[in-house]
């Protein structure tokens, strides 16, 4: 399975574990984009974890809007754990979107110049 | 006689009363009030002057009432609970009587959210029931809320009115509210404008069964429809308004330039029907911004000449 090397994967038992703070910290630490991959809606093993994750992603999108930064830098995707190829496809898709947006405006100046 | 007001005399003598309405302007131009007065003079027994209706700032009800009185009409000064505390209200009541005003309507008032100053502070120190009680106490016991007494002959002897909405929710409770206002001391009430005659007759029947038609003069609200647009607006966007489809259909069935005439015709028929309902002591005509039609409406409904009591 081939997907871009610029993705850092953080595994969680359920996307319901992902908090708003995790998404914000990722951006603070220099990520140009953050995306959450959860199970298909209706298939969450913990019933509503992925629904909560979606709401938190929406919250962070709103924060980005308030800061006049592109909301597309944070996203939620839903797929089944068995969909390897789709996982790779999402990785490529999101990478392309973020590349199109350019480096994160939150990056410290030294990093931006690089 | 509680107040010697013309309205009180007409009602007490058993005549079918007619009251009108006048909305003051959104400016300091008193002439507008005097202009409107011309259409109403001789066609009604007394005229409501609204109090910052829909929470929109207008020339005050007290001033508007005085202007009407100066034109030879009798005013029904409206007072809401939204903008004034008990101190200002009692003060204005004393002032109104001193200026010759004889009828006072006690209302809750639309929330300021609906008006042009939605950021204003909300008063509602007392509610409309308590205001009715207060005016009655000032008149019959010569006392203010504080207990302060006025000397005999110096108290405000006002004829007390209120508004009722037979169609607001919960419907079953509406007659109880009328009873409560009667107990509080109201002399007359004016209803919200009526289109659903069947429902109104039901309300009147219940009021009659509770003995309320003996205690309170009930005036039925009439607003002639100017156009299909107005009819639809009232049906769909005005809370507590019940406009049956048959009214809409009747106006729809007439071409645009005939709609106003049809609206007047419907109102005339309604007035005639109202005369037959036991307990209805008169009508309250609200032809807001259409005051020029009142003479025609009143004449066609057979309400002229107004009694001189």
């Amino acid at each position, binding site marked *: 399975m081939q997907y871009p090397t610029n993705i850092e994967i953080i595994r969680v038992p359920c996307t319901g574990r992902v908090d708003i703070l995790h998404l914000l910290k990722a951006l603070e630490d220099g990520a140009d984009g953050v995306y959450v991959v959860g199970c298909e809606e209706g298939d969450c093993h913990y019933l509503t974890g992925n629904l909560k994750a979606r709401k938190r992603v929406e919250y962070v999108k709103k924060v980005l809007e308030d800061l006049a930064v592109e909301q597309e830098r944070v996203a939620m995707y839903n797929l089944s754990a068995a969909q390897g190829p789709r996982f790779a496809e999402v990785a490529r898709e999101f990478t392309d979107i973020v590349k199109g947006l350019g480096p994160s405006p939150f990056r410290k100046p030294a990093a931006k110049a690089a | 006689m509680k107040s010697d007001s013309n309205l009180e005399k007409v009602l007490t003598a058993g005549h079918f009363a007619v009251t009108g309405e006048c909305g003051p302007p959104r400016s300091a131009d008193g002439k507008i009030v005097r202009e409107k007065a011309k259409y109403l003079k001789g066609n009604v027994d007394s005229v409501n002057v609204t109090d910052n209706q829909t929470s929109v700032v207008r020339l005050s009800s007290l001033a508007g009432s005085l202007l009407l009185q100066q034109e030879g009409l009798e005013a029904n000064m409206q007072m809401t609970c939204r903008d004034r505390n008990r101190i200002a209200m009692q003060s204005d009541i004393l002032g109104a009587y001193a200026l010759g005003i004889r009828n006072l309507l006690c209302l809750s008032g639309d929330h300021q959210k609906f008006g042009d100053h939605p950021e204003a502070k909300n008063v509602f120190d007392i509610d409309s029931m*308590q205001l009715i009680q207060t005016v009655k106490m000032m008149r019959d016991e010569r006392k203010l809320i504080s207990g302060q007494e006025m000397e005999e002959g110096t108290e405000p002897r006002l004829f007390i009115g209120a508004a009722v*909405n037979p169609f607001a929710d919960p419907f079953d409770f509406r007659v109880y509210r009328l009873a409560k206002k009667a107990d509080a001391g109201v002399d007359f009430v004016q209803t919200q404008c009526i289109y659903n005659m069947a429902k109104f007759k039901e309300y009147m029947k219940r009021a009659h069964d509770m003995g309320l038609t003996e205690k309170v003069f009930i005036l039925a609200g009439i607003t002639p429809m100017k156009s299909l647009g107005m009819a639809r607006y009232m049906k769909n966007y005005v809370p507590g308004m019940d406009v049956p489809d048959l009214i809409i259909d009747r106006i729809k069935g007439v071409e645009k330039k005939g709609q106003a005439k049809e609206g007047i015709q419907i109102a005339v028929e309604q007035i005639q029907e109202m005369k037959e309902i036991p307990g209805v002591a008169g009508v309250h005509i609200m032809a807001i911004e259409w005051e020029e039609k009142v003479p025609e409406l009143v004449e066609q409904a057979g309400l002229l000449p107004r009694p001189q009591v």
Partner: protein
Amino acid sequence: MIIAERKPIEEILEMVRAFKKILIVGCKGCVTVCNAGGRKEVGILASIIRLAREKDQNPIDITEETLERQCDPEYIEQLADTANDYDAILSMACSVGPQFIGARFPEARVFPALNTEFMGGALEHGVWAEFCQGCGDCKIHLFGGFCPIARCSKSLLNGPCGGSSGGKCEISKDVDCVWHLIVEKLMNDGKLDQLTQVKPIKNWSTSRDGGPRKVVREDLKL
């Protein structure tokens, strides 16, 4: 509990625009329960401010703290060692907090990060509504257990008004007409007679209208 909401980000950023080093202090009381100013919310706000300042190339140093409560001097005292090290202190408690901090540390610049709104409770997870206005003279038992002062838009004691429609208040279909609820409850309980007498005029002097209030318990004073 006291329900508050974080101020809009633009407003908070404007408050701290000129500062390089700030303290954000949360509260484990009411604002934690209504998810407005607890430890987590302090972390989120700090992160958002840092991001915004990074973007403007004007970095800011933020320290995060959360106190047990900000409405008791003994907890505010915990900030004594460091309070004056900051250019500004952002309090995420209800508005009592920043006032207490400001009183204890008069040289500090203190800002409220929340808008304190009302006394209320949770209707469901994430939704809180106003139930009490602190009128100082509770009579809910006379109204079927509902408070008409807080929950009626016009604080009517003899409602409903003519604007009640479909069980909703005239100001919004998201607001229940509490008088509709009161009447229904008393009708169901066969206690409609409780509403036939005109409820007397309220004495507002026990409410905020009488001036700022104090409660003193002589038996508890040291």
